[in-house]
């Protein structure tokens, strides 16, 4: 890494960054975009290929209807128009990741266009204008052998697995995003995070960045402050985590600012993000501009979604995650901090289901965010993987609310449920955990405590109420914690009044 970098704050004092984000999403259809090969991730290399996705002569592609439906739902969720008529196009290029020597994509007729979404960074809303969402197919996966780093430079040869070739892909492209200023890297990160949540709630993709089912190319250019003409942009690839998105953009902003401030020129190029070193380096060097010679795909007929179909799909859109979280926080009446704990702990679905099962929001939050989060953490499990259901947590909280058990006993009930001893009420019964409400037994225990500690008893008779603590403690101990401390206190004071 030899790039000159300007301090980030200095760079932002001189320049306004303009973002452009291209996100590729692999759809989770069972079969590929144009053939019936499986899309299952992780299969043995080249076991999921056929004449169509290998581009053998004479093979004919047919569009996967489910993929088109997913593409339209994504477009609608992005607030896009859905094309009344559109075509696929061949994007011609020579690279061994595609046997056909072209990628079937869409060119000037995307299925969805002109949308916008609003995301938030530190409570400030930013509108991200969407240029288009179009359908295409993924390429095969190259493995470079022989190079020192495993990257292609210096590689002696490459090995290719075509299982991924032809997997349905949606490319979502923003228009230039201006006005994000200092927050630009965080806005980009928040946007991709928003897309991830949205795509997950649509159920159209696994959206796993680490498996490559959600990939982001981050474009950025700088405009000198006070000017309006877009600068030359660079496109950073290989940005494979949310954290990398903001880090790569921050790096590019600092690098470009240093070049511009010293009177240099930005080269329009593709750059590669190196996660380990935290820097970008120039990627594919082209002697001339790309010429993909797009033309309409003759083997696939146009797609003309009826307006009825579009409206029917619009009706299937789930509540968008950002809308849902806002609504739930309001309904449950949590502060930002209380609600933030739920989000940070990935407990939103669980708390919601627990509330739906009859628990108070505060009760549901308390168990999932504290006690159960701790146990999941200790066991190395996701919260949702714990062997306790929202319904059981709701039942537990109801037992507490009814005074059958206290919080301390409730933890033992959780032990029992997690150990597979049954429903909360069964655990209470089988472990004998209920708070003792038999007044005869309690009174007897109180009398024994008074008899055992005459000094404390005398002090209380003399009006020193704080001395009751010792007697209450003795009673609770005798009852093995299975008593309501407030009831014991009332009983002690009554006996000695």
């Amino acid at each position: 890494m030899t790039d000159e970098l300007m301090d980030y704050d200095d760079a932002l004092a001189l320049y306004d960054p303009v973002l452009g984000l291209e996100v590729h999403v692999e759809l989770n259809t069972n079969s590929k975009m144009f053939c019936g090969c499986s899309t299952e991730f992780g299969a043995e290399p080249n076991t999921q290929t056929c004449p169509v996705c290998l581009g053998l002569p004479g093979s004919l592609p047919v569009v996967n209807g489910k993929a088109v439906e997913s593409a339209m739902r994504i477009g609608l969720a992005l607030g896009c128009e859905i094309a009344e008529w559109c075509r696929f196009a061949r994007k011609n290029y020579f690279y061994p990741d595609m046997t056909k020597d072209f990628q079937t994509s869409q060119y000037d007729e995307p299925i969805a266009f002109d949308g916008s979404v609003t995301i938030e960074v530190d409570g400030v809303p930013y509108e991200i204008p969407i240029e288009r969402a179009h359908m295409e197919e993924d390429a095969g996966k190259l493995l470079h052998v022989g190079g020192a780093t495993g990257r292609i430079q210096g590689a002696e040869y490459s090995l290719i697995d075509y299982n991924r070739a032809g997997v349905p892909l949606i490319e979502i492209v923003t228009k230039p995003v201006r006005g994000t200023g200092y927050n630009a890297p965080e806005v980009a990160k928040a946007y991709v995070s928003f897309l991830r949540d949205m795509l997950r709630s649509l159920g159209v993709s696994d959206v796993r960045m680490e498996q490559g089912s959600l990939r982001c190319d981050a474009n950025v250019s700088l405009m000198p402050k006070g000017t309006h003409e877009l600068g030359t942009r660079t496109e950073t690839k290989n940005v494979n985590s949310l954290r990398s998105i903001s880090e790569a953009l921050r790096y590019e902003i600092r690098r470009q600012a240093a070049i511009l401030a010293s009177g240099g020129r930005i080269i329009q190029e593709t750059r590669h993000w190196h996660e380990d070193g935290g820097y970008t380096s120039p990627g594919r060097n082209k002697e001339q501009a790309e010429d993909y010679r797009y033309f309409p795909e003759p083997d696939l007929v146009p797609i003309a979604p009826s307006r009825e179909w579009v409206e029917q799909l619009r009706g299937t859109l789930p509540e968008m995650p950002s809308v849902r979280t806002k609504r739930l926080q309001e309904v449950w009446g949590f502060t930002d901090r209380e609600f933030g704990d739920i989000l940070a702990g990935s407990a939103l679905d669980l708390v919601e289901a627990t509330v739906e099962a009859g628990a108070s929001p505060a009760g549901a939050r308390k168990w999932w965010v504290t006690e159960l989060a701790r146990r999941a953490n200790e066991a190395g499990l996701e919260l949702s993987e714990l062997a306790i259901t929202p319904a059981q947590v709701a039942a537990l909280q109801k037992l507490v609310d009814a005074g059958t058990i206290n919080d301390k006993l409730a933890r033992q009930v959780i032990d029992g449920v997690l150990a597979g001893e049954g429903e909360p009420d069964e655990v209470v019964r089988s472990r004998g955990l209920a708070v003792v409400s038999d007044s005869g037994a309690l009174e007897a225990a109180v009398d024994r405590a008074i008899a055992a500690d005459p000094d404390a008893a005398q002090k209380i008779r003399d009006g020193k109420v704080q001395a009751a603590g010792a007697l209450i403690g003795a009673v609770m101990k005798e009852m093995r914690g299975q008593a309501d401390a407030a009831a014991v206190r009332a009983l002690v004071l009554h006996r000695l009044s």
Partner: protein
Amino acid sequence: MALTPDDVARLAGLARIDLSDAELAHLAPQLDVILESVARVTEVANADVPATSHALPLVNVFRQDVVTPSLPVESVLAMAPHAEDNRFAVPRILGEEA
């Protein structure tokens, strides 16, 4: 709009076809004839005749999202000039990054 041998050389480069100077000079006027013929068709078509990319007026031909058997990996790799670890082996690509 006569095509020059340079134009043809660029097209040949894009298509990864190796042509000699003599071939470029020979092909340029031939391609010209094709382009002129197509241009004549364009003249005949009025503005109310839409461009046609498909011979049949079909739209929305879809398959069900159902997995069908793939080819056996042995027959797939039998088509590869070289294979290793069940993968196609190809020469390294110079000056490019994946």
